[in-house]
């Protein structure tokens, strides 16, 4: 039995947990290759043309796995934390995967509702074990290993908070964009090549992020965006970065709102410079490099903490 796992979307969050579950079940987990130009092209061809870039990339990974595996694992991540929900695209992802192309292998879609304190969703994973022909004991053990690796995952993430030296840039974006070198056009590497150190959301303190997000006048209800907004506000209020790059993808729903929210909040507070970079399947390196260079040059001019930014004048415009 070969179970395919697309290396896309929330694999960048929970991939190791899923793999450890499959290993405990004793089935062979087949990961798709890292994203390449062909992956994106295949995704653009098969996915609905209005979905966001990461979903297209996901579709590309799925098409690559199509002929190699017996079943595909696409967990339905319902929430990533208590009191939050996921982007609708994650909620409908398995169903979207099923209608992607004819002749796809069966899609297994156990739910993953990390905000559920009763852990009712683990039943789905147990059933996956049984569907794959494993016994009760093995399935239960696999579920236990999934929960263990999730706990480790929680413990590891979000406790590191380092100061990145003189010129540090906060890169606020989804893991599946930032951590995928093909999609993000090696943005983090490029920043470091320009002499800046990049701080990602992973390296921000989860506790601080939660504190700042809770202080917003209206709660951000998407799990990851809540973390992102909190982390950006933390960076800006403690001036732990010189500038922030908000990396979003074309047609990203929550991104369009969170971008507007942060832009407004940071402008009101008059703190660090904020730049939005929108990725799509046509993004080219040259355009990105030019913007990064301009941004880092601007940050170099004025040392951190000494700048005063004019809040946009009220009543202007229209």
């Amino acid at each position, binding site marked *: 039995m070969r179970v395919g796992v697309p290396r896309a979307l929330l694999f960048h969050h929970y991939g190791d947990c899923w793999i450890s579950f499959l290993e405990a079940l004793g089935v062979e987990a087949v990961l798709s290759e890292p994203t390449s130009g062909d992956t994106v092209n295949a995704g653009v061809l098969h996915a609905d043309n209005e979905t966001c870039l990461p979903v297209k990339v996901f579709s590309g990974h799925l098409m690559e796995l199509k002929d190699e595996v017996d079943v595909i694992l696409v967990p339905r991540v319902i929430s990533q934390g208590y009191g939050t929900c996921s982007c*609708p695209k994650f*909620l409908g992802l398995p169903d979207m995967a099923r209608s992607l192309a004819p002749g796809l292998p069966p899609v297994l*879609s156990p739910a993953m509702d990390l905000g559920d304190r009763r852990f009712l969703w683990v039943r789905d994973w147990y059933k996956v074990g049984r569907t794959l022909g494993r016994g009760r004991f093995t399935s239960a053990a696999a579920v236990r290993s999934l929960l263990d690796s999730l706990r480790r995952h929680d413990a590891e993430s979000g406790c590191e908070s380092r100061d990145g030296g003189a010129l540090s840039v906060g890169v606020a974006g989804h893991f599946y964009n930032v951590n995928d070198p093909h999609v993000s056009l090696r943005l983090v590497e490029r920043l470091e090549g320009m002499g800046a150190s990049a701080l990602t959301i992973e390296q921000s303190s989860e506790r601080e992020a939660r504190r700042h997000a809770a202080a917003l006048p209206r*709660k951000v209800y998407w799990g990851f965006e809540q973390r992102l907004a909190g982390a950006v506000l933390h960076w800006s209020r403690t001036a732990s970065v010189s500038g922030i790059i908000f990396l979003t993808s*074309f047609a990203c729903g929550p991104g369009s709102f969170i*971008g*507007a*929210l942060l832009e407004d909040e940071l402008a009101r507070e008059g703190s660090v410079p904020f730049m939005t970079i929108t990725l799509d399947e046509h993004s080219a390196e040259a355009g990105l490099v030019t913007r990064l260079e301009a941004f880092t040059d601007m940050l170099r001019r004025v040392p951190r903490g000494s700048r005063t930014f004019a809040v946009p004048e*009220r009543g202007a415009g229209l």
Partner: protein
Amino acid sequence: MRVSTPRMGNLPLIVEDLACRFGIDYIEPPVFSEETVRIGASLAPEFACLPLKAVVGTFVQALEAGADTLLMGGGSGPCRFGYYAEIQRRILEKEGYRFKLIILDPPSTSLKAAYSGLRSIVPPDVARFGTLVRELRRALAKVVVFDEIEKWGLALKGREAEPGSVERAAEEACSVTAAAFTGKEIRRARREVQQLFENVGLDDDRQCLRIGVVGEIFVVLEPYFNFDIGNWLGKRGVVVERSVHIADTAYPGGRNPVFGYDERQVARAAAPYLTHEVGGDGLLSVGATAIFARRGFDAVIHFLPFTCMPEVIAKSVLARVSEEMGIPVLSLTIDEQTGRAGVETRLEALLDLARSKRRRETIPLEGRFSTSPTGDLSLRGGSQPP
């Protein structure tokens, strides 16, 4: 306090009724125009969905017209609608407007937030708790009647013998309903409305196509953005049924009294294709398409605003529904740039497709159709006002 709200379908009628009940100074928001959309698109974030931009435009115009309090719906996801109010507040404040924005959260988000939102426009000295509940129940019963007028109008427009008779009936029905306030008056108004529609002369020989309209509530309900799809199809002899109504959205317990299928039935119909709630009207679009297909409709039109998250899911799933259930589905993405001609061309192509499909399947379908031209569109049965 001069209150204004967004505009969508017959929402202004409903708000006017509520304003009358609670003695609120209500400014009707201006009708949508190119100017509204231009203002909205220039202020709102680029990738925000069309309803947000349209409502920002409406709010700016309402504030210019003298409103000082804005009412907006809330929610807690996963659709972006729940965060509209916050983004709109920030946009308008940045533009220098002074106003108060009241967010009406649905009770499902938080009972407390819903009640306090309500109480900030209807303070206890205007209406005690009992009065508030009673008036809201009556208002809801009235919303159902308003939506039924729309529903019956769409069902009969394509079959009217004399052009314009349905429109006249609907106008009269609306004014009859608008004048009803107590439960008894509303029940009587509903009977009168039903009579008005039953008196409309129908052309029974006409071969009507039956088309379902599904999609995101704002673009489906607002004639400015769907290019008045109901009338456009009606003029071409099409019987139309819609899946979304304001009353169904507002009704507690997911009963959908106007659409006629409750949430569980919709979810069951959608289950082979979409097994989880995706926010907004995504699940309803898929479920309603499956229901329409099962009932032998000729085609389904799916409206969605550009980048609408739930409907994009629905759109990619609908491709499979269409294939497996053999019903043509046309997804129309609407944004501030969408032109009338492009939409009409595609609708005409859909009508041609539906007609030729009907002709190919002449023997079974024509027989069924001529024996029961009304199908399940009859005015009897249906919902009862609470």
